[in-house]
């Protein structure tokens, strides 16, 4: 089976005033479609940097990344944007919903950019808001939603163009326990519906839900666990 993501000896160095910082060192990783992977590690160990590179947001300074057999390093910025638009969904700790738009409009934006016809967009948007249990909040703006609701809208937006990969950076970081549990269950559902999921988290309980878990330290994968 062809891996969805194949990272080969990835390295990332940030040039800083006090000397270069090695955020990632020699990271190799393969991930298939529909797989669920969590990444844990102390702050500054390179988890988010790895997530950004896997999400075609950032590029490695060494090594290579293949996304669906395409070498991301050789792609132009516009082509990487196209991959993000159609194949990758992002969920962040701080939700990053567009504050001037309603929940439904936030879910509509990526579809509109992808050129989905209006009627199909409306249908898909309502389907996704029902999926995350927020159809009744479609016309509310982010400021009118609770943290848990905002994160569910962010997940709906991330799934708008039926991505093959969902990347979540501390998705429960700003939520209470009950809402965190709700989001964790939603991510389980997304994965069981066939989307590959990568979650970066400090939350041990959330990390334990994934069948495959990475522990990172000092820019390296220190430990990899599989649960049968």
């Amino acid at each position, binding site marked *: 089976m062809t891996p969805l993501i194949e990272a080969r000896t990835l390295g990332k160095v940030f040039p800083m005033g006090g000397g270069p910082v090695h955020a990632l060192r020699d990271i190799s990783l393969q991930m298939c479609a529909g797989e669920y992977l969590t990444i844990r590690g102390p702050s500054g160990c390179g988890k*988010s940097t790895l997530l*950004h590179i896997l*999400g075609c*947001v*950032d590029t490695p300074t060494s090594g290579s990344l293949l996304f669906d057999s395409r070498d991301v390093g050789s792609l132009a*910025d*516009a082509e990487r*944007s*196209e*991959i*993000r*638009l*159609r194949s*990758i969904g*992002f969920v*962040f700790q*701080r939700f*990053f*919903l*567009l*504050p001037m738009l309603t929940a439904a409009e936030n879910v509509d*934006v*990526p579809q509109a*950019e*992808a050129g989905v016809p209006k009627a199909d967009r409306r249908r898909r948007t309502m389907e996704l808001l029902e999926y995350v249990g927020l159809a009744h909040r479609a016309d509310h703006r982010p400021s009118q939603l609770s943290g848990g609701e905002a994160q569910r809208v962010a997940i709906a*937006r991330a799934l708008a163009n039926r991505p093959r990969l969902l990347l979540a950076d501390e998705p429960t970081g700003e939520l209470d326990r009950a809402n965190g549990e709700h989001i964790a269950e939603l991510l389980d559902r997304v994965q069981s519906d066939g989307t590959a999921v990568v979650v970066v988290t400090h939350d041990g309980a959330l990390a334990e839900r994934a069948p495959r878990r990475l522990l990172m330290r000092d820019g390296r994968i220190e430990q990899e666990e599989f649960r049968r």
Partner: protein
Amino acid sequence: MPIRRAVIALTCAVTAALSAILASQPAPLPEVLVSRQLMEAQHLQVGDTLRLSSAASGVDPHVYRIVGEYEPTPDPMRLGAARLEVRMHLPDLLAVEANPQNPLDGETVDAINVSVTNEGAGSDVARRVSGAIPGTAAQRTSDDQRRAAPFVVLERFHLAIAIVTVLASSVFLLALMLMLVDERRATVGVLRLIGFRRGRILQHVLAEGVVIAITGAVFGILLSIGMEGGINRFFQWRYDTALVFVRITPSVALRSIAIAVPLGVASIFASSWSLLRAEVFALTRR
């Protein structure tokens, strides 16, 4: 024949009588026009008589009858000066100015204005007069450098003010756009994460810039048109003149739009460019 003689005699008698009557009537007063300002200052009315003298003491005055009021031609060089003026026929003016001791004085003039029926022929007439009468300088009034000089200075002054205003406004607009764009840092970051291309976001930004610039220019023009009457009325009252201080013409409006729109778009483009060049993950990080 006797009848004819009688008629001739009667005609002569009537003519002689009329001549005697007319000779006994006083000569009609010379007519003058008086400026609105002088009419108001001296509470004069059409039909009043006016005594004018070339001497400050008012000695040996000439008497005129006011037949009308006129608004003096506005002159920026005489802004603030009270236009207490009278317009009279050239012989009357010469009579006022003439020195009784010098019989030729009434025949001398320094300059006269001649109106030509064909405006376009003014230069040709001036050239022919200058050539035909040695020692005479003839020129079109519009070619008079002394008259045009104040307007040239004024125009340059206006141009300098306009350039400084446009430059200062551009800097202000750029600063405003930088703040506006910086406030949208996270929004741009989210759009880039979602998969919007730089060019696509730039399109949105430029479209917004064009709308803002056109709206601003139109607002500015409408505001200027709205204020034009008020400004003119205030300064015309302040300096008691008919001079037009502000005039928003279609050409001025078009020039304003032609300057404002590219400047507005350039400002928003310049302020957005740094944001769009930043790494995507840097935009969502504070």
